[in-house]
């Protein structure tokens, strides 16, 4: 009997935790920039949030750093990052933004961001200031690309070399 009750309770707990997780996002609040899971090559970060109903939101930005050392994540070697060993360091906390329109945008620029992994958290607040919904999005920030690396005006290679390259691509793929 006790085992039966414990099993029912586990199922109920799991069920409710799933529901809580899936109700976290507010469908009227959409992060436009940076795009979900994108990489930004800049030292400035533009946050743009589209709000399609009268809402009050609060935006926070954190850098996810290595716990203990508080060093930035190596964005050039993300596969080696231990994601369970990260701590959130606040980068931006701004006053809440309230809109009474059916379409508006919250925009904010964060200057002088260094390369790393960042989390943008958007909370929807009710009239009492309590959080009703939360959205978290991650973005990778890397340094600006060097112009010298761009090969826009390089002269095309000779026909023989181009032919060999095409053969290799055909055999081994891109």
């Amino acid at each position: 009997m006790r085992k039966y009750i414990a099993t029912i309770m586990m199922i109920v707990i799991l069920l409710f935790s799933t529901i809580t997780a899936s109700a976290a996002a507010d469908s009227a609040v959409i992060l436009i920039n940076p795009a979900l899971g994108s990489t930004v090559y800049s030292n400035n970060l533009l946050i743009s949030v589209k709000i399609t109903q009268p809402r009050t939101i609060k935006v926070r930005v954190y850098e996810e750093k290595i716990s203990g050392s508080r060093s930035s994540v190596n964005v050039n070697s993300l596969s080696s990052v231990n994601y369970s060993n990260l701590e959130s360091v606040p980068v931006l906390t701004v006053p809440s933004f309230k809109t009474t329109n059916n379409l508006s945008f919250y925009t904010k620029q964060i200057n002088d961001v260094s390369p790393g992994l960042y989390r943008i958290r958007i909370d929807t607040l009710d009239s009492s200031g309590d959080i009703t919904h939360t959205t978290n999005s991650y973005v990778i920030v890397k340094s600006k690309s060097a112009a010298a690396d761009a090969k826009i005006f390089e002269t095309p290679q000779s026909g023989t070399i181009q032919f060999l390259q095409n053969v290799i691509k055909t055999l081994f793929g891109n």
Partner: protein
Amino acid sequence: MSKPNQVIEQMKNAILVVLFLSTVLLLYFFWGNVSFDKISLPEDRIALEIPSAQEVIKPYDIIVNFGAENYTIIPLSNRDIWNSNKSGINSIIKEFHKFGQTENIKFEEITTQQYEEAMKFQSLQAKFAYHMPFSEFCRIYDINLPQSANMIAYLSTVGYSSVSPDSLFIYNGRDHKYYRLVADSGNMDFSSLIASLESEGYNTYYPISSYLGIENSTLVPLDVQTNLQSFSIQRDAYSYQKEKINAFAETFFGESFDFVRKITEENGTIIYMYGYGQKVLIVKPDGTFEYKEEQLNGAGSQQSFAEALDTALEFVASHGTWESLDGAELPAYLKDLTIDPDKKKGYRFTFGMEANGIRLFNKNGESLIVDVTQGQVTYYYRNMLDYDPQELESITAASNDSAFSAVNLIAQNYEYIYQVLKEKGLETDLSDKNKQFEKVSSLISNMEIGYLNSDANTEEESKVKPVWVVALSGINLYFDLYSAEPIGYSEE
């Protein structure tokens, strides 16, 4: 008679003659209705103030990309960056001069994709609102380039990119062609120019796509602090100012003014006509002037762009001047250029005006238009404003305030904008609000701050207002700068 007495008598005779001639001359002036202003030695004439070609030819936008989509658009008030004679101040034209001094410049046509890729890096683009003959541009700015430069017929944009630091880029918008001018050795220093702009601080711009998630590369500022306020204006002339209008009319007809017919219509329009319409000046009740002159066949030869522009600049200076008829000055710039207007060989120059470094937009017509065909001015339209310079200067002392967010102006007004497009027959009926928003956002081609003269046909003093100007599909829509309330629109 003794000798001294003879001398005295001769002196008396001389004085009598002088007095007699003076009397005749005075009688001629007072009874002959001749203005003293006309009596002057050539060297005593006040020199006409004529803006130079370099002063009026300015890029509409100078876009700086500091790298990785960090943009700014240089404000009009900081146009030393385009061309400056001041020592110690670098400018785009100075860099162009340096480029022209290098040997072995190679010209090559490049693709649109190559140009757009190059401009994604640290770069600078000076964009004109019209296409002017490239050789004439070089002549006006004393830029020496080799003969092979003739492959570039027109210039619409001058560009630089850190991807190719020893090169300049030219866009010919008339023929949709891009060119790269490559020098053997590098003596330009655009990177320092861009670095100094970055260090001075700037208004940040992003493409519409970054804010709204809708495909559109038009740059829009993130936020703007400004102290622009309305100021009072009056028309160049009111219909009751007959002496002022007459004096202006006289500049067109000269000695034959006495033979000019003057017709006053019921609505207050005054028409001055010489002969059977060889020269016609129309003075409208709204304070605008329109002058038409019959083309004299074979009398003049076709002028180059630079020569025709000089003709236009001199003509305005001697017919009303570049100031209002009461002397209030608003700096002019060449706003548009039409080659061979109405199928006549020549140019139509449309000039715009600026106030305190901000462009003036007229809801009803342009400020100045001059047609120069076969070396002759055949059309001149004038819609100048008069204002109190002290009032305009006092505005610059006002404290800054935040202009309404450009992005939220679009969000707040997309339905109104869409309605205007529908009324103009430019868009089909879309009932879905999301699709309306996407459509409007994708069509916006320019957003800038300006002054709006929406003066209707009133006799009263009116105001010029600071506004947001949103351009799309050939229409300029105007919104209050601080509240984003729609004010109206006009067609470009």
